[in-house]
């Protein structure tokens, strides 16, 4: 006798309900009841009319575990179709990641260091930032963490480039269309608020473990959000007077974008890029659970095997890497700001 029998009796559905006696495996409570050891439940223990409780009263109602199973089967059913679409699209991401990883791990250390410092100088023109970066890179090498650090850096750089390639055009399109903005913002909110583990689950099923695009996509999805937001914001904040001047001199939409809007929005876009880099770094550590290489693997080892020292050393390297990336991108940003309002 189940709690909600009366409901189906009242609706006159008893016959329909009993037409199919549930063949689903018994629940733990049923098993207990059959052994005769059922605990006498107090009168206030009325179950919420959940799927399971209703199923007890009427065999036609599905149980929750069937719904869960349905979700899984549904996902597995569309997986081949999704994979036929996604596989070729995302394949270049794997190549980029593998190629960059190969470059960063196989090239001799002095070449990589020189290249990174050169890039730093080109981007920031700041001696102090360059010295700091040289110190950090030497530290990684000194404590024999150079290779994992470079792996992490390689992954971050690739994801940053991908985020910029997709994020900036999306941001521009959003700034031009209020409707698109209304549609995209909830998606961005979702990507930012979803616990990162949640979207690792479907990704594991979509892409074979061990392929680098698996973590590449996970990181990019997480890190692309700020650059989209700030590109959109930056272009919307461009001084309307200057845009009007562009109009008055007969600029077309493309000229306005390239000569007025993008240059004036550049500081905001660069701030977005800085955020994107920092979020990639956060995610690349978590993504080590799905085979992302680098310092995250060491952190994970520290957690799994309770190797405190390994975890701490990797943690210190991650912090240094974070400060390095942040300093460098901020210095590049302020160089742009300075160029914009040059006061000799």
């Amino acid at each position: 006798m189940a709690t909600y029998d009366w409901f189906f009796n009242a609706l006159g559905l008893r016959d329909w309900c009993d037409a199919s006696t549930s063949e689903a495996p018994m629940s733990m409570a049923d098993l207990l009841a059959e052994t005769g050891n059922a605990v006498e439940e107090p009168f206030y223990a009325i179950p919420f009319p959940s799927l399971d409780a209703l199923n007890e009263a009427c065999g036609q109602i599905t149980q929750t575990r069937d719904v869960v199973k349905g979700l899984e089967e549904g996902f597995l059913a569309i997986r081949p179709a999704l994979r036929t679409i996604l596989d070729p699209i995302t394949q270049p991401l794997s190549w980029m990641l593998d190629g960059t990883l190969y470059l960063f791990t196989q090239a001799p250390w002095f070449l990589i260091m020189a290249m990174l410092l050169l890039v730093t100088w080109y981007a920031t023109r700041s001696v102090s930032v360059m010295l700091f970066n040289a110190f950090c890179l030497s530290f990684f090498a000194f404590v024999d963490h150079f290779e994992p650090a470079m792996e992490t850096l390689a992954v971050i750089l690739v994801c940053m480039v991908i985020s910029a390639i997709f994020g900036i055009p999306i941001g521009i399109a959003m700034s031009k269309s209020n409707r698109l903005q209304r549609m995209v913002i909830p998606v961005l909110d979702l990507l930012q608020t979803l616990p990162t583990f949640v979207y690792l689950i479907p990704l594991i099923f979509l892409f074979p473990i061990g392929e680098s695009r698996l973590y590449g996509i996970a990181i990019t999805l997480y890190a692309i959000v700020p650059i989209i937001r700030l590109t959109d914001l930056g272009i919307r904040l461009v001084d309307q007077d200057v845009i009007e001047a562009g109009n008055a001199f007969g600029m077309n939409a493309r000229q306005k974008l390239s000569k007025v809007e993008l240059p004036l929005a550049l500081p905001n876009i660069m701030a977005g890029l800085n955020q994107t880099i920092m979020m990639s770094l956060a995610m690349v550590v978590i993504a080590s659970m799905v085979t992302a290489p680098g310092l995250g693997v060491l952190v994970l080892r520290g957690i799994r095997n309770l190797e405190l020292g390994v975890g701490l050393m990797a943690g210190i390297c991650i912090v240094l890497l974070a400060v390095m990336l942040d300093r460098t991108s901020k210095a590049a940003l302020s160089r742009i700001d300075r160029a914009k309002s040059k006061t000799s």
Partner: protein
Amino acid sequence: MLENTPKVKLRGLFKIFGADDKSVLPHVQDGMGKEELLEKHKHVLGLQAIDVDMQAGEITVVMGLSGSGKSTLIRHLNRLIEPTAGEIVVDGEDVTQLSQADLRTLRQEKMSMVFQKFALLPHRTVQQNAAMSLEVRGMDKETQDTEARKWLERVGLGGYEDHYPSQLSGGMQQRVGIARALTANTDIMLMDEAFSALDPLIRTDMQDLLLELQLELKKTIIFITHDLDEALKLADHLVILKDGAVVQQGEPQGILLNPADPYIEDFVSDINRARVLRIRSITNPLKSKKFAGDVEADDNLESLIALSEGDTALTYRVMSDGEPIGELNMRDLVKALVPRISSTQAA
């Protein structure tokens, strides 16, 4: 109109701001006022029944207080704002009928604009800013450079080519704005409160610069201002706007001497009339035989008062290009100095 066909002709121009401007237009055409329109139909009346002719080679000044629709008016000429109804004829061509591509060509080749807040590109040098209009048109780099350099030199910014706008003072930034408009080499220049953001001394400098350039270039300039002194100094043709409608237009001296309604009388009552009025405007036909002396028709009254040392009994012969064109009695001069104010007389 006796003169040749006007360069820019506005006919029956209406602008109503709001979601459904076309449908409330008939109400406005039937004479509904600004307040009533806002209350009953939630639409804002921008411009109503504007008929203005702007002659080639003249400075047409549109003057009005803030909210009178003057900035709205100037933005109709290059259709930065779309009119609700009416015609905007430039060189015989109705701007309202142009396609977007033709409109861009018009903005590139026929009209340039100078803005109140300068609206320069902060990430570009003065030189690059001045060359912007040519760059938009796709001119080669060399022409851009020589033209921009030439006009920067002309507005007194030679040597500042490689500075950035933020390194310059307001007055110099606006010189860049003017150079940018001149580099476009258009017949028509739209100046939207171009000097309003500058301090008074710089403003006088800029007005002199504009008049000096105009003497040589003979552009068709449409100048927006809220400052009557500026309007009287620059205008060949003065249009006074109030609540989106033209209250009076014509030759500025004429408006000063014969204001059409109390609104304009209030406007003109604070002016130093002796400095603004020209002898030409109050000259009578030749009658007398004896004159205290000859004066130039284009001199202002102040100079004549100084010449006569305040003696009101004298009569002067008015000369223009060496020919006598009339006479001026000092009594008439003194009368002209007193503004005719019907509102204060009534009070």
